[in-house]
């Protein structure tokens, strides 16, 4: 089965990173697509939380916003937003935070705030939203994003949310943050995981048909590769079917 797009490969791979025991704090866009695909395929018991206050939600279509009515209507319960951030996120009840990024550095620090200078930005991006606290309060962080030299950068214009800081144990030592931090980066080309010592993202599997050169060309830092380099398992037919049906239902619903 080779009839799938790089984006589909990315979503399916990201979905597989979640298990039925996870409680996942879901960002809108790619994370939401992957998390719901997981729920609709191998992880029906996966608990999804959106920052609008919806706990254990099971949307039939992907929400356009973080607070579509669909999320509330299919949730176990909906709590006020201060409670969401206090009891549920800060309370340490979320196993996986699923984030996207405009810019990412090799230590998993994320920028979604500005391109250029903060006070006179070239491009004003939406900003952090829930990310600064998602990044430190969830058990671990998965990042899903398309790969390019503009997005995987040597140096962020602005640190919106903490990854592994300057690498190594910087996260714990300088900032007193004891959660695991970014533990997986899933792109349209490969999967990366932090090196156990340096915490620099290291390619641990290449998607089918993708070469090391492609990864290097689309990484703004000096790409690192693990000693063993398996191929990321290709999407199964049932995964692609579920993903495409989900996207079709979604497009129809949002006009």
């Amino acid at each position: 089965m080779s009839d799938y797009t790089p984006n589909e490969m990315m979503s399916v791979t990201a979905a597989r990173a979640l298990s039925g025991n996870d409680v996942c704090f879901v960002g809108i866009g790619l994370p939401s697509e992957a998390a719901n695909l997981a729920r609709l395929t191998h992880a029906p018991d996966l608990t999804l939380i959106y920052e609008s206050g919806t706990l254990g939600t099971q949307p039939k279509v992907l929400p356009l916003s973080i607070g579509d009515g669909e999320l509330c209507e299919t949730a176990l319960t909906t709590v006020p937003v201060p409670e969401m951030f206090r009891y549920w996120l800060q309370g340490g009840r979320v196993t996986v935070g699923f984030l996207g990024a405009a810019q990412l550095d090799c230590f998993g620090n994320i920028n979604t705030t500005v391109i250029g200078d903060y006070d006179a930005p070239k491009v004003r991006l939406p900003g952090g939203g829930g990310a600064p606290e998602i990044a430190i309060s969830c058990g671990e962080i998965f990042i899903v994003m398309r790969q390019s030299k503009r997005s995987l950068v040597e140096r962020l214009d602005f640190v919106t949310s903490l990854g592994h800081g300057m690498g190594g144990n910087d996260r714990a030592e300088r900032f007193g943050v004891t959660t695991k931090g970014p533990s997986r980066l899933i792109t349209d080309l490969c999967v990366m995981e932090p090196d156990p010592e340096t915490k620099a993202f290291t390619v641990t599997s290449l998607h089918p048909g993708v070469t090391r050169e492609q990864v290097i060309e689309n990484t703004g830092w000096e790409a690192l590769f693990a000693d063993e380099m398996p191929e990321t398992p290709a999407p199964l037919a049932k995964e692609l079917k579920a993903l495409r049906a989900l996207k079709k239902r979604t497009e129809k619903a949002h006009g």
Partner: protein
Amino acid sequence: MAEFSTLEEAVAACVRDGDALAMEGFTHLIPHAAAHEVMRQGRTGLTLIRMTPDIIYDQMIGMGCASRVVFSWGGNPGVGSLHRLRDAIEQSWPNPIGVEEHSHAAMANAYDAGAAGLPCAVFRGYRGAELVRVNPNIKAVVCPFSGEELAAVPAINADVAVVHAQKASKKGDILFEGIVGVQKEAVLGAKRSIITVEEIVDDFADSGPNAVILPHWTIGHIVHVPGGAHPSYAHGYYDRDNAFYKEWDAIAKDRDGFRAWMEEHVMQGSAEDFARHRPKRTKRKRR
């Protein structure tokens, strides 16, 4: 004490040039009709406080109402940029605009502190985040028991809170249902308030004992505006108009197109225009 009035009266009585204004609703129940009236009354110099500026503040900023914006996520959800917000920050159009930027957790805690009558909110946040460098309203306190350093931000106590709710009782009590966001906190923390509602009912007899209700003696003005949250939504009444959120991207992209659209749809409009966005037959999905 709650007073029933028209939207014109409520806005004229409550919103003054230079006010700090919190028009809340986390995706759900955004008070669009009230924002249109604020623009029609030509208020300027406002500090606009909202976790997600969304279309409602994109419009107000583009019409020159704002001199400052306090927010935590300024995009068009699932679509892209808020072009008027960006144009104001990047190009100072139609006027320069000050920015106080926070995380969602910080703003949610700050609203909570405002409702709780505290001067500041204390939480675990902002570790390693660069907003600490650019926002002087992020400070720290130390837990006197554990020695842990925690983040602190000032409480949000707006001059006026404006929110939309499903129901007012005839006595003036307000009921919220669904994604309830920070609306209760915004109203309790504000000096004055305007609540637009989908309907006015005798009482809330069919709600559970722990429903999210604000008593009449905590409320300023109540205005009956069916459909008044559109293109946001009112759980149980009408859905979010996701198609419009996508269309907004094109409408707001250039200055002239934006101003023309606003002139036609907002400046020449009225609160009654919103009723058409609400289906005649109320849907009553509970969950």
